[in-house]
């Protein structure tokens, strides 16, 4: 602690001056190298022999403006599916993770099924699950078969539920056994210990990877276009087919990135807030 009366020694002044000089130097160096890399990339891309063709067929502003409304309309379906699928997959993942932690012979079949589920659906490509669900189930011609959109969404929930279950399980297992011992010693039941002591700590710890998987889920929601519903990607595909120009795909891609930004922001905010609350007290 330096008091207001403290005079900084010559040695310390020298250190401060040195650190300031190196800070200025590293900022200048970063600016210079960024400029060099940027210029090189620009020259490389725009100077390429096919650049004019590429610009016309991928970055046509007129086509972009023309097709933006259609793609946005499709994106609304992606947004709705994203919200539903993310919430459902998180719930399913949490349920499976908790089931896998149950001990005792009574729960053996439950545990075995949950394990089988996480093993198989993490290995199964999402596209195949979507095809099986969206085309296979209607093929049964059962009464009250839900729409292809719902079936495609279910495929995403089932696949991502398996990933999220493993993330939740890692979180649950990272909570030290002494925490459970403390909870049980107070008379809390297994369920209460899980709910009030283990899961809150587990979820906080794995919040970043959970939300990371949710961002991945958001992209893969676009795969339901394979089953037929007109989402942003399907709308862009129609645009590409009608204009013989790839610009609609670029528009859809940019929209997906923009859609991901808030979720990524929330991930950082949630993580930071939890860390600060535990580290900073009140």
């Amino acid at each position, binding site marked *: 602690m330096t008091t207001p009366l403290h005079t900084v020694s010559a040695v310390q002044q020298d250190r401060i001056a040195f650190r300031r000089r190196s800070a200025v130097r590293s900022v200048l160096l970063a600016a210079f190298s960024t400029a060099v890399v940027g210029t090189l990339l620009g020259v490389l891309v725009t100077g390429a022999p096919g650049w004019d063709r590429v610009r016309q067929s991928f970055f046509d502003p007129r086509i972009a403006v023309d097709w933006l409304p259609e793609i946005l309309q499709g994106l609304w379906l992606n947004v709705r599916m994203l919200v539903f699928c993310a919430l459902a997959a998180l719930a399913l993942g949490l349920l499976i993770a908790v089931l896998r932690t149950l001990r005792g012979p009574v729960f053996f079949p439950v545990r075995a099924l949950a394990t089988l589920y996480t093993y198989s659906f993490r290995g199964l490509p999402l596209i195949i699950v979507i095809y099986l669900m969206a085309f296979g189930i209607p093929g049964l011609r059962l009464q009250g078969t839900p729409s292809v959109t719902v079936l495609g969404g279910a495929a995403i929930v089932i696949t991502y539920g398996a990933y999220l279950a493993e993330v939740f399980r890692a979180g649950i297992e990272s909570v030290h056994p002494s925490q459970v*011992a403390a909870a*049980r010693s107070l008379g809390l039941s297994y369920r209460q210990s899980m709910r*009030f002591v283990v899961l*809150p700590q587990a979820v906080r710890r794995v919040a970043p990877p959970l939300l990371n998987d949710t961002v991945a889920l958001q992209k893969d929601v676009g795969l339901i276009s394979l089953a037929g519903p007109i989402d942003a990607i399907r709308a862009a595909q129609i645009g590409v087919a009608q204009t013989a120009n790839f610009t609609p795909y670029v528009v859809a891609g940019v929209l997906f990135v923009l859609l991901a930004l808030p979720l990524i922001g929330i991930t950082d905010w949630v993580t930071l807030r939890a860390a600060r*609350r*535990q*580290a900073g007290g*009140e």
Partner: protein
Amino acid sequence: MVLSCTDVRKTFGSAVVLDGLSLDVGEHEVVALIGASGSGKSTLLRCVNLLAEIDDGVIRLDGEDITDPRVDPDSVRQKIGLVFQSYNLFPHMTVLDNITLAPVRVHKRAATAAREQAMEWLDRVGLADKAGSYPDKLSGGQQQRVAIVRALVNSPRLLLLDEVTSALDPELVGEVLTMIRDLKGEGMTMVLATHEMGFARQVADRVAFLDQGRVLEQGPPAQVLGDPVEPRTRQFLARIIEAGRL
């Protein structure tokens, strides 16, 4: 008898940790368990709290066989408080929430009443200003006192203290020991595993020396610590004196 252990046996694989241990604790009695690391002190406390399952023998609480598999362990633990060497406070809860968790969720008390009671306790141990803090903002001694309060608000029949000062800096040990001494004054029945021989001598009504999973010798602190009968007890105490802890 509040607590009565008879011929308790506990093994971990091929290691026999408790080997036919018997120990009785009467109402308002304070029993100090001493003995080398691995002599079974902590294991005994965990078995009494049913955190570990015994392999043979009987443990009775107020005459009821709590090691009967038909007994609900949760209801037994509600009557026994356990304080750990490493505090084990819940890091994601404030001090106040740590203390009120069991009263509200297990004993179904009203949240406001539980809070009032918790604040009274915190006030008593001089930690009222820490009620809203998270555990990692507290010193070890403060955390351990919170952990003891957390066990006490459930009004246990029996309080088990597992080397509660072993993880503390020497200058913080005193505040925890003072609290335990006060509890004895109020008639709390306690079993404490400890390496603090001086404290065992002051606060315990009886000292039990554990060796190889049995109570080798027990009696008034002055006798066991001052003039032990068994050679192994003498050996143990000689090593403690050598280490400067008596």
